């Protein structure tokens, strides 16, 4: 997912308000960093096409709102980067503590827990003998 600086700022803005049209967004950002209404409209359109904003037409103007919460958006990004790249054609730039694509079921996880308990018992017995 490629997001420009302004796109990130606009997205952050929509996580603080429920909905806004291009004029309201422009008004907010013109105080902070300037820029034309046209730039804001293009940015909103890009974010909409990327699926990050929803929009509905009220009168002549589009009213935009965030498609997902900030937390859900970050979760989606994490999922994208932690997906097992070798099987999903995705990421290899990271080393995850545990792979989210692990396919162990509850029974296999319980077996692993037993293995750890056995190891602890073995160590305890060896420790008391020595």
């Amino acid at each position, binding site marked *: *997912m*490629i*997001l420009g600086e302004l796109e*990130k700022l606009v997205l952050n803005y929509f996580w603080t308000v429920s909905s806004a049209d291009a004029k309201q967004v422009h008004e907010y950002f013109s105080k902070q960093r300037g820029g034309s209404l046209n730039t804001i409209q293009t940015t909103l359109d890009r974010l909409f096409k990327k699926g990050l904003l929803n929009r509905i037409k009220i009168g002549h103007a589009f009213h935009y709102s965030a498609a997902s919460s*900030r*937390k*859900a*958006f*970050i*979760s*989606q*990004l*994490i*999922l*994208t*980067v*932690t*997906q*097992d*790249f*070798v*099987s*999903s*054609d*995705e*990421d*290899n*730039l*990271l*080393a*995850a*503590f*545990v*792979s*989210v*694509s*692990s*396919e*162990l079921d509850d029974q*296999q*996880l319980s077996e*692993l*827990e037993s*293995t*750890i308990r056995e*190891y*602890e018992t073995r*160590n305890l017995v060896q420790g008391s003998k020595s």
Partner: protein
Amino acid sequence: MITGFLGFMLNAFSIIVLSAVAVIALVSLAFYCRSIDFHRLSAESRQIGLWILVCSPWLIGVLSSAIVMLLSSPSVSSFAGSQFVHWHHPTEFALDSWHGYFVSIMLGLALLMALRAYIRVVRSSNTIRTLSAMSRPGPDGVRILDTNTAAAFTAGIKNPDCYITSALLDQISGEEFAIIRLHEMAHIKCNDPVKKTLFYLLTTFFPAPLAISFNQTMATAMEQSADAAVVSEQHDKATIAKTLLKVRRLAVQEFTDQFRLPQICHYGLDNIDQRIRYLLSDNKGDEVPMLSVLAFIGLLAIFCALGADTIHHAVEISLHHS
């Protein structure tokens, strides 16, 4: 017709490509026949073995090309070896010949595969940059991502960072956090994200199932090495294993709650399963028999040099006769 040094280099390149294709085919065959088994090797040895394996087509290609071009040189023409291997036009390269077509097609394919892999790497880098922008500084140099998803990972090529989500941080103890942090820092210390990327680029020249298996084996070996780095910091193996299981349970629970998990066909055992069993095992596996591997590479280079020369003569004789 290209002559002189450029002609020499193009001829050398065509031998490299011919040998590399032969080695990739040989490695694939050996892998499918299960002649290559990395599981009895230690985590570090597995990484070394995998690097040798993915570099072998190019290493052997360069060696065999050096053998052929050296024996084809006029100064060593009296040497007995030149009777077996002789490239009769080492400084002449015709673009509109079978050499030209072969080199062009192979070069085009290689560029296409490298470009495809590069685009994926760039796309991933952009996602990581966005994640980085969404994160905030946390304790002991880690970066925190505010989300309901439990996860911890290291990402980034230039300046890799260790990320941990607020959901995970809220559910782990101080000792568990220290274990996760040490594990991720071990990845940063070993430049694992860069190595994984480079390794991934090299595996793109292999058939897809093989590339997947190589990448999975490398990822597991890197994780096992990072786990070993935590053990070396005086942490109890059982506690590390328990932390792994806990994070695994938390991570998957969160992901299944919110997203559909990607369906994956694993070749071997699961990553976590292998890591915990390896961590608790006293037998850490064998070392790479370097001498045998080097001897094998040398032999394969000679075999490829002979093969390239034979194919070269066979094609040229058939073309002259037709």
